[in-house]
């Protein structure tokens, strides 16, 4: 009896609480509704539409002309006779890896130096400026500097080196735009890494100093390991940004040239869809890129988790 009364009592209280929770839950969903509708309309629906298009033949303009194409678009895109796998996908990966490597290396160096300088706010603002500037401005400034009669070739000529066709020579074009992408993204990474550096307790350095460690040892054994969560975040975001890069290429080279040397996946998708009206092929490319980005991001997370780190 006691137990029955007790059970009724314990059921009665939660029932009221459950009712309240349900009301609150409904209210929460209702408050979220505008954002969810926005999310669905501008993210989920286009994504589903892109999946449908990837398996279709569609020239744009009229949805009535959409035809089922099966996996033909993927066959075209992934064919080794075509240009998407090589050079475009290869360019995309080289561009992303190259810019991430340069930006991460540069930002760690800059953040570490700033952490040891006076007027840290000033230095951070200085390095953050390229992030504030538009890609169009950055691309055009670097484009002018890379010109045969531009600043960089001027310096090379003064040093007795012949001019280099940074954007017109197929061998130099991709490294040239990769450097610009890295330069433009250092600022954001510096900000995140500086915050990471500030979070490392000073006592570790004091203890290391007592043990006689030099600056290099402290950097290698304390700073770098404790900076890994921030580094992981920087690596993932920069890598995704690098793989999706589009605006810088179009500003600096116009057509992904010379000879597809700077053509990357996002730019090729744009060309296929908006220039050639090959929406199916463009969407298939988008799906391939999506899978690659997802796989690389999961790989990065898996490696980090094996070492017990999270981006928090």
């Amino acid at each position, binding site marked *: 009896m006691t137990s029955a009364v007790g059970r009724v009592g314990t059921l009665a209280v939660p029932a009221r609480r459950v009712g309240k929770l349900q*009301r609150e839950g409904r*209210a929460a969903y*209702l*408050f979220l*509704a*505008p954002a969810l*509708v*926005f999310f669905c*309309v501008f993210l989920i629906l286009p994504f589903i539409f892109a999946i449908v298009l990837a398996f279709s033949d569609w*020239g*744009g*303009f*009229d*949805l*009535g*002309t959409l035809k089922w194409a099966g996996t033909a678009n993927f066959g075209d895109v992934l064919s080794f*006779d*075509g*240009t998407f796998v090589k050079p475009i996908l290869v360019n995309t990966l080289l561009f992303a890896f190259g810019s991430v490597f340069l930006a991460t290396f540069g930002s760690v160096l800059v953040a570490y130096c700033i952490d040891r300088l006076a007027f840290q706010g000033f230095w951070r603002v200085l390095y953050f400026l390229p992030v504030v500037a538009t890609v169009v401005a950055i691309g055009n400034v670097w484009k002018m500097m890379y010109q*045969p*009669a531009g600043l960089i*070739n001027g310096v090379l*000529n003064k040093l007795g080196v*012949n*001019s280099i*066709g940074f*954007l*017109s*020579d*197929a061998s130099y074009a991709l490294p040239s735009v990769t450097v610009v992408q890295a330069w433009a993204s250092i600022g954001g990474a510096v900000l995140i890494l500086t915050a990471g550096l500030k979070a490392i307790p000073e006592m570790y350095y004091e203890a290391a100093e007592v043990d006689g460690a030099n600056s290099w040892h402290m950097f290698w054994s304390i700073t770098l390991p404790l900076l890994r969560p921030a580094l992981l975040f920087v690596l993932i975001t920069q890598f995704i940004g690098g793989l999706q890069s589009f605006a810088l290429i179009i500003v600096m080279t116009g*057509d992904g*040239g*010379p*000879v*597809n040397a700077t053509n990357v996946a996002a730019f090729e998708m744009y*060309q296929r869809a*908006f*220039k*050639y*009206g*090959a929406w199916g092929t463009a969407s298939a490319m988008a799906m391939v890129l999506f899978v690659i980005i997802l796989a690389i991001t999961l790989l990065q997370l898996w490696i980090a988790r094996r070492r017990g780190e999270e981006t928090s």
Partner: protein
Amino acid sequence: MRISRGLRLAVALGLFATAAACGGGGDAGGSGDKVELTLLSHYSDGPSKEGLDKMIQQWNKENPKVQVKAQVVKFDDLLTTMTVRQTGGRGADIVSAYGLWGGQLMKANVVAKVPDDIATKIKAEYSPAALGAVTTGDTLLGYPTELNTYVLFYNKKILAAAGVSKPPTTWAELADAAKKTVKRDAKGNIQVEGLSLIQDGDNKSVHPFLSLLDAAGGKFLGSDGTAQFDNAQGKAALKFEADLAAAKATNPSIMPTKQFRSGGVAMAIQAGWWIGSLKTQMKDKYSSDVGVTAIPGPTAGSKGSLAYGFFMGVNQRSKHGDEAWKFLTWMNEHKAADGTVTETGKWLADQGLIPPRTADQAAYKKTLSDPNMAPIYDAATYAMAEPNQPGAYEAKTALHNAIMGVLADGKNPDDALSQAAKAVKPQ
């Protein structure tokens, strides 16, 4: 309970705001008896906009029940704007488009079939080059408007200083003049480029190459969209370009539209519209420095050119197709004030373009005050019309990559052409 009502109200307002933000108003096609036609084009500034606006104003004044409203975007945004608006159900009633896009627009049911009576008149009254540039297969896409042909521009003073007394008439003479006029400094930087083989804009190497291909008697694409350039004529034309690149007499990193006016380019294969820009930029120096001649071929007497065009057609989804065709017919047929040429012909000629109508061309050709215009008009009689079937744009890009591989990367011309031909996929 009151809170719950408040919540519902807030959510409803939120949803309403979202719907309002996501939704868009449709184009008002007309109110009552009045019809409003929209005309989307790239005639966004200068004489092109003024001339078109003038014609539209006259029509609107004379036809109060059918009003035309011009909508303009830059050329670079025209195809994207058409794509987005058409897909969203907000396409313009009348579209002005580049002939190369014709096949794509036809395949996607964007442009309506030209009524038979109008098509018959157009076919009878317009030049073959203009018709070819705006016809896909056997289908005429609309009224031909802009027509451009390619010619050889040269700097008379640079050629004379290099000992070249007359403009080249064969490929051998052209190569010789290019090699004689090229100048480099001690560091290898080009001071004067001998012959420019690129043009400003999309697929920049293709139009000059196709002009040379035409001069050699070759073709770009067959009527079924298959590649026709991977043959003796195509290889000869690309080898000609490769030899100039190897001799460093041409360099694709130099943009003639920027360097020619200041004497940085001796010769350039360019479209006729360029003449208007040169006149504005070079002022007095134009008549003393600039010469224009036909693009020579491999043998004496042979010459070639490429013709590309624009057209104005009616949107298949327009609710006012009849009115749109009436306006286009009036726009393209009514005479200018002097009664000798059509107003559209005058509008185009005022921009330095070739009027596509044969009678207008003949009238203007008789009274050309600038001798440099004559080769541009002549080219309209023999130029290869730019193919525009579905897939032509992609084929053009494949060819562009092949040519740039030869010019900028030293690739073998035969291999490059063969690779480009494989990338051409008829649709």
